[in-house]
């Protein structure tokens, strides 16, 4: 059937059609606001970040470290209540040199988002940013250390760690 179709439906538009108002559009910009509760597991995780410490939990059944800290193990499907303090050092699992922002806008200076395996967690990684290095010198397997914000500036958020720098 496909080969017999002469005209496939759909009318492509170009940027000009919109800029020169050749077609009609209706615009709307929503203004919504939310306040999300951190809950019990993340609540403690962030409270500890404020103190300059990274905390996870350990499942007593599978012995896995859960990071960010959580109060149930999704594999064993049981309560987890052993808190484990981890190092603020780690190893780069993977990274990017990113020239695009949230809405695909272009950045002049690249950022270096990475997954960092946290020491003491047996290879569990968290998402964060690397700095104080030429982006093109970052390597998978590189050792890094957290750079904490000064204590008065911390607010109990993932951004209490400003970034990670090479050791």
């Amino acid at each position, binding site marked *: 059937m496909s080969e017999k179709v002469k005209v*496939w439906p759909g009318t492509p538009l170009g940027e000009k059609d919109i800029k020169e108002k050749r077609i009609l559009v209706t615009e709307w910009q929503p203004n919504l606001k939310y306040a999300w509760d951190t809950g019990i597991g993340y609540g403690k995780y962030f409270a500890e970040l404020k103190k300059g410490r990274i905390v996870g939990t350990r499942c007593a059944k599978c012995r896995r470290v859960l990071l960010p800290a959580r109060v149930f193990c999704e594999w064993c499907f049981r309560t987890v209540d052993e808190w484990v303090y981890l190092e603020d050092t780690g190893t780069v699992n993977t990274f990017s*040199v990113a020239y695009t922002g949230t809405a*695909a806008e272009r950045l002049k200076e690249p950022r270096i988002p990475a997954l960092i395996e946290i020491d003491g967690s047996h290879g569990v990684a968290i998402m964060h940013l690397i700095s104080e290095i030429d982006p093109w010198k970052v390597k998978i397997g590189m050792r890094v250390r957290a750079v904490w914000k000064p204590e008065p500036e911390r607010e109990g958020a993932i951004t209490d760690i400003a970034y990670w720098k090479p050791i």
Partner: protein
Amino acid sequence: MRKVAVVGAGMTKFMRRAQETGKELAWQAAGMALDSCELTLKDVDCVVMGTAPDAFDMIHMKAEYLSDGAGAWRKPYMRGFLGGGTGVFVANQAWYHVASGLFDVCLVVAEEKMSSCLPHPQGAFVTCWDQFTESPLGTSLLWFFAWEMNRYMTAHGITEREIAQVSVKNKKNALDHPCAQLPAEITVDDVMNSEVMAWPVKRLDVSPTSDGAVALVFASEEVAKRITDKPVWVEGVGWCLDTMYIGQRDLYYPKYVEYAARMAYDMAGIKDPRAEIDIAEPYDPFSYKELHHAEGLLLCDKGEAVKLLVNGETQRTGRQPWCPSGGALGVGNAIAATGTMKVAEIFWQLRGEAGKRQVPGKPRKGVAQAWGDEMQVGTVIVLGV
């Protein structure tokens, strides 16, 4: 379970911005699919609609809003929604609607209109990250793909130039697709010299954002045999979800795609997919993804997909063509509709109706796969004649 066949397919062009509304696109594809098998809406017992994030249109219950275009009114109706994995998942849903014996004919309509979201639909993904541990870092969706591509390249010692050949192949294949948005003759150097978006991902490694719709008609064995001499049977379906905590899994390999593929192959009685599958449509929103997914689909060993690519075995005239349609990279990536486009391609190929894209040698078995949700779902369907 009853045998189920795909009996009809239709699609609109894929384009950066369509003048048609989502409803109009859905209606065009649905009407075309029904016409192709000479059925009317009266013959349709139930409707499955696939469309991805509501945030693209910012319309609450978007699939219900679109449902008149899908021919759903006063019929049993449901929405399939697994993000980018939706397009193949809606085909799986149609299969179980009919295989269960509950319905004889199921119409599947997958639609996406990404262009309404300004300035760029990537912004609609702002809430797909964890709102506590990830979003405050100022995330970009591209980070994820860059991490995965980097991990995949490093684990196997694969180069950017090798991966670029996927873009070259798929955009070239798309030259023969009448609905393609970005068909092109390009070179590896073009890919390498294109803008760095989030290294190692460059502009020509990325599929475009698209508007478009695709529809399929599924029928029970009895109906299929009555209305067509060329039914394409659904031989296996599978889907699987992995963890949302991306630091908890190794991105170098899509284990969830393997589990979904094993589920589908077991159902289809396929023991050796490398030999038994004639054509494959792995999901290719990024160049490396075709290779990554082909490995998850067990079409080669881990890290070996690039060798098949470089040898030319995955070309349209090769031993096992991958993305003969032109894929998301060439035809376009209208998120939920892309996977369904891949199922439609296997349908047309197995019927020998793919026109200029027809794979030689009368292919008898094909697999289509999609990937999505929060980048951790695999959906697979095996079709055969």
